């Protein structure tokens, strides 16, 4: 694990172990916001930003908690940091783009409970990444989340025009689609280092 280069970490997290499609992180916004392309892209970017900040804070916090031997407080401090970051993003977005703020609605504060964000912090701690690796990991994760969201939104926009059997409509169809996308992403499995 120590020998992974930054580029490898980025590409692996972006494609072969994509946060949404291979590691099942951040499924709620993935299924909830992926209806339209114009909300999927900003949602992905906002989440990526929170992920980056959370990853940096988690790295610092982990050092601090390790120094004082307070590792059992790790989870609580991570979640508090993430909640505050989300609040910040929410305030910024409300000020600079009220229309977007309304479009994202409840899903914006819900970034706090997005497993992908906490997942970044927890996985980088569990794998013992250093600062550079953590940044590459969070950037890859954010980009991967955005990619999955945009792909799904693209497909679902086309689906609106098609005739779907009644019982298949809604979440069942989204899940089947996600399964197909996930199957496609498994094709990237050979990229980078085989785990």
């Amino acid at each position, binding site marked *: 694990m120590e020998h992974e280069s930054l580029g490898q970490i980025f590409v692996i997290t972006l494609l072969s172990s994509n946060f949404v*499609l*291979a*590691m*099942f*992180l*951040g*499924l*709620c916004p993935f*299924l909830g916001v992926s209806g339209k392309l114009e909300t999927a892209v900003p949602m992905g970017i906002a989440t990526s930003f929170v992920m980056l900040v959370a990853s940096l804070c988690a790295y610092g916090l982990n050092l601090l908690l390790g120094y004082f031997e307070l590792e*059992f407080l790790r*989870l*609580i401090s991570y*979640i*508090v940091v993430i*909640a505050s970051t989300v609040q910040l993003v929410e305030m910024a977005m409300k000020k600079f783009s009220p229309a977007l703020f309304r479009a994202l609605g409840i899903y914006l*504060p*819900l970034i*706090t*409970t*997005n*497993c992908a*964000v*906490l*997942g970044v912090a*927890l*996985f980088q701690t*569990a794998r013992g990444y250093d600062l550079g690796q953590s940044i590459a990991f969070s950037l890859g994760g954010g980009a991967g989340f955005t990619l999955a969201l945009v792909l799904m939104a693209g497909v679902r926009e086309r689906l609106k025009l098609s005739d779907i059997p*009644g*019982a*298949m*409509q*809604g*979440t*069942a*169809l*989204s*899940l*089947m689609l*996600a*399964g*197909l996308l*996930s*199957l496609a992403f*498994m094709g990237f499995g050979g990229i980078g280092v085989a785990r």
Partner: protein
Amino acid sequence: MTMGAKQVTNMEQLLEGIWKQNPVFVMTLGMCPTLAVTVSGFNALGMGVATTFVLVCSAGLISLLRNFIPKEVRIATYIVIIATFVTLVDYIIQAVSLALYDALGAFIQLIVVNCIILGRAEAHAAKSPSLPAVLNAFGMGVGFTIGLLALGSVREILGAGKLFGVTLFGADFQPWVVMVLPPGGFFVLGAWLLLFAWWARRKEANHGA
């Protein structure tokens, strides 16, 4: 409204989460752990029990504190309470079964961000006395566990030919490996939802005729 709310018996509180508002199949909440850990029946059961424990404890505590928590900081307070119980569960599982701990990995700590728990805290525990809140949370936990088991057992049977580690078929059985891989999770949950949707529609059609 308060009169109506009082009419709900304790039994109904308990049953709501198990059937009518099942978190996995009806509300589709808490999807991440649902799909990630259900590669086997055993993992699904462990995750379900851990989540139920956190759900019940946090619902009880939040319900007791509901008159003391200022409205402005309630979400932050809930999260801290939930995170405390999750840390507890994390250490308990580590002590009881290291195999389960290794299999579930970071997903134990990710119980914090399971939408079911925060959703229950906000929608139910913050407004009701302890007993109904705990019963409701317990029902939700059982419903969640049933959902996880439904997924986990199907995926284990198809993907590995086993159930709770017991081999079901003869040596000639070719495991359907994709079912224990990530796409299988999406497919199996999609199939369950499809089944329920089809059933609901059929019931509705019969009712109309």
